[in-house]
């Protein structure tokens, strides 16, 4: 390897992720980010200072040994890099693409102060994609069957990660999913142009190779009860990863007009049901030339705004009640959305949705806001500016203000205690719920969070399920979660 001085390295700029042309990409569902070339990845990896105490690792929720994998990339040992990542993360191709890096690993990189943090996410994606594209995954090692079996409820990142670890421990693992396709939000929520479905599919294929079974159309609590999984169906333990799939609405006048979608419905029609294909069988309102307004400021709002553009919308606006600085969406998504021509209206809050005599949406009445004192979340609270109200014409509105924990399963299983936020009560260090043999993790225990946290929670639970299956010990009173 060429020796470069630290000083020279510090001068180098972060390598930009090559992306498709904004005008071209906004008309199709191809992935926006193209991926680093080997040369770009090597140079970016060489920029890493290989810190003695790599602060970046603390920023990663699953503590990937970032300095080590980047060191491998710098010398072109991609297989070695993948081995390092694999110790802590099972879904690098996905997390490399969708983690809020600026708030996690990259935000904690020492170079962040100079505004040039290492592109850790892009490098992680590069490693995972290279391994997948060249078929370099390590062969599946045969494991001694343990004779135990575990049911996984929900096939989002939490369930998939938990399934992987348990299958590798030799347990028989069966994933039960309510929908007809596995993947959770990765399939029905996050659009193709941000996370190609073939990547999610290859993760699921990998699990099938490990021997994990998948049962679709199985709504636990309805098709099969929780109790039955543990008795008649004979599972020794259950992991619940049913996510936060309950869409929140604004509870304002006009919300049931035709043309008002929840982000979940809109994105499900497009992603899961393929309503963007020309010969789709699932309908979606014709957006050609239409004015679309999206309420919210998170990743879901960005996806809900960029998708209509690709379906031919004339104008898409995002209405957020705080300012750009408070937006919870990934910085890259906001940047991409702006490049594509999405208009942002900050410090506005919808008061009422306006409709015509036939019940179709025609516009939105907004209240202008200003920022007041910080609230519990530390963000400055938006407060209405008295009398500052205005109307905006709109044909379609998409409500993307967040999701609550999915109530279906807890509602049908009285032994699963819920917090007052509707999340499942679990012992955070083990994922144990209040029902013997049942563990939980992901959005159903945290409320809408991130893919990496869900994956991490699935793995934590897998470890304690292993322990429980081995020892049979179940402490009856798990510490209730603080949050």
């Amino acid at each position, binding site marked *: 390897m060429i020796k470069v001085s630290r000083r020279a390295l510090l001068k180098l700029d972060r390598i930009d992720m090559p992306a498709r042309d904004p005008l071209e990409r906004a008309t199709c569902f191809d992935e926006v980010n193209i991926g680093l070339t080997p040369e770009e990845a090597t140079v970016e990896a060489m920029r890493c200072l290989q810190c003695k105490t790599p602060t970046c690792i603390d920023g990663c929720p699953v503590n990937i040994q970032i300095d080590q994998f980047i060191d491998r990339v710098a010398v072109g040992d991609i297989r070695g890099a993948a081995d390092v990542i694999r110790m802590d993360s099972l879904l690098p191709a996905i997390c490399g693409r969708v983690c809020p890096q600026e708030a996690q690993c990259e935000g904690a990189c020492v170079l962040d102060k100079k505004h040039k943090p290492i592109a850790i996410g892009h490098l992680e994606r590069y490693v995972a994609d290279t391994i997948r594209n060249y078929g370099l995954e390590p062969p599946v090692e045969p494991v001694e069957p343990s004779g135990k079996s575990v049911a996984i409820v929900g096939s989002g990142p939490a369930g998939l990660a938990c399934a992987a670890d348990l299958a590798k421990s030799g347990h028989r693992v069966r994933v039960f999913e309510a*929908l007809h396709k596995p993947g959770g939000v990765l399939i029905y929520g996050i659009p193709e142009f941000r996370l190609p479905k073939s990547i999610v599919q290859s993760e699921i294929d990998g699990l099938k190779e490990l021997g994990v079974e998948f049962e679709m*159309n199985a709504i636990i609590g309805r098709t099969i009860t929780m109790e039955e999984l543990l008795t008649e169906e004979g599972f020794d333990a259950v992991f619940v990863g049913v996510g936060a799939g309950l*869409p929140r609405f604004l509870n304002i006048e006009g919300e049931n007009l035709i043309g008002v*979608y929840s982000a979940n*419905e809109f994105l*499900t029609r497009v992603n899961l049901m393929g309503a963007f294909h020309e010969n789709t*069988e699932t*309908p979606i309102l014709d957006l050609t030339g239409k004015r679309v307004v999206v309420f919210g400021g998170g990743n879901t709002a960005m996806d809900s705004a960029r998708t209509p553009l690709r379906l031919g919308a004339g104008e898409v606006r995002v209405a957020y009640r705080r300012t750009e600085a408070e937006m919870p969406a990934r910085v890259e998504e906001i940047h991409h959305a702006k490049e594509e021509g999405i208009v942002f209206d900050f410090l506005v809050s919808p008061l009422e949705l306006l409709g015509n005599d036939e019940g179709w949406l025609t516009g939105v009445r907004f209240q202008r806001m200003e920022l007041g004192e910080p609230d519990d979340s530390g963000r400055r609270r938006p407060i209405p500016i008295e009398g500052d109200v205005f109307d905006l014409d709109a044909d379609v509105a998409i409500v993307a203000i967040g999701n609550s924990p999915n109530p*279906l399963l807890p509602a049908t299983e009285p032994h699963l205690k819920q917090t007052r936020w509707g999340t499942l009560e679990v012992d955070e260090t083990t994922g144990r719920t209040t029902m013997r043999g049942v563990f939980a993790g992901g959005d159903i225990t945290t409320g809408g969070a991130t893919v990496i946290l869900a994956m991490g929670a699935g793995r934590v639970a897998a470890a304690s399920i292993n322990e429980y299956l081995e020892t049979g010990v179940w402490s009856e009173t798990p510490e209730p979660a603080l949050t």
Partner: protein
Amino acid sequence: MYPILEAESIAPDVRRIVIEAPKIAKKHRAGQFVIVRVTPEGERIPLTIAESDAEAGSITLFVQAIGRTTRLMSELEAEDCLVDVAGPLGRASEINRYDGAAVVVGGGVGTAIAYPIACALAAKGNRVVAIIGGRTREYVLLENELRDHGIEVIPCTDDGSYGRKGFVTEALADVVADEEVGVVFTIGPVPMMSAVADVTRPGEIETIASLNPIMVDGTGMCGGCRVEVGGETKFACVDGPEFDAHEVNFRLLQRRNTSYRAFESRQLSSLESLDHEHHEQLLAPVRGACARRAMS
């Protein structure tokens, strides 16, 4: 893949389809529904479980061919398969013992949907009157089956070709005037259910309507099925599908059900324009032997 055990036409455009779905059969209670996909690229549509046989592991659906998906489904025969069947979804009907008669008002395929509720009410010891309507004689469904359960049947046809001439609501008004009515269940086209609610409102007779909004997942995840009941927004797939008919905003439901009318008629005509061969190509993956191979 979910194998079809029996399939037969019981009226023009109405098919009775029995499906092998043991887990759903075991859990089903009157009033619940399934979400079905017919072909590998097909949409998800809700259909009520009309009957279930836990021992045989089967459920029975009645489907009225009104659009592309239901049309395709109606072309399936025994030995063919459905790609997906998920359920049972929704809350079960509350079947109580009433002081007065229990009246079930069904229109068209709604009669088939109301059938298990009528039977369950009869099994609870209620006097049950079924007012079943159809455009013409062929559309009056399940009359004999209902009578077999000891249910009094009042058939009505729009054209008077059979039973009473006129709307089911007129027959209902007479029943309400003649005897004490404890409860009315109504299932059918939205305007019919709305009219039924109007008949029973003055006498404050408990009236329950099974709503049929457009759905996607059926598990409470999308909110597409939202309806307004007593001024509040409800998700019909998890909070319903049955609601107090006097509180339902039927106008809203009727409107929301027209959201995709242009798309639906385009789809239907594109299906109708297919020649036999292309038509069969669509169904090939779920036809008999082929579908069974995919299962194994």
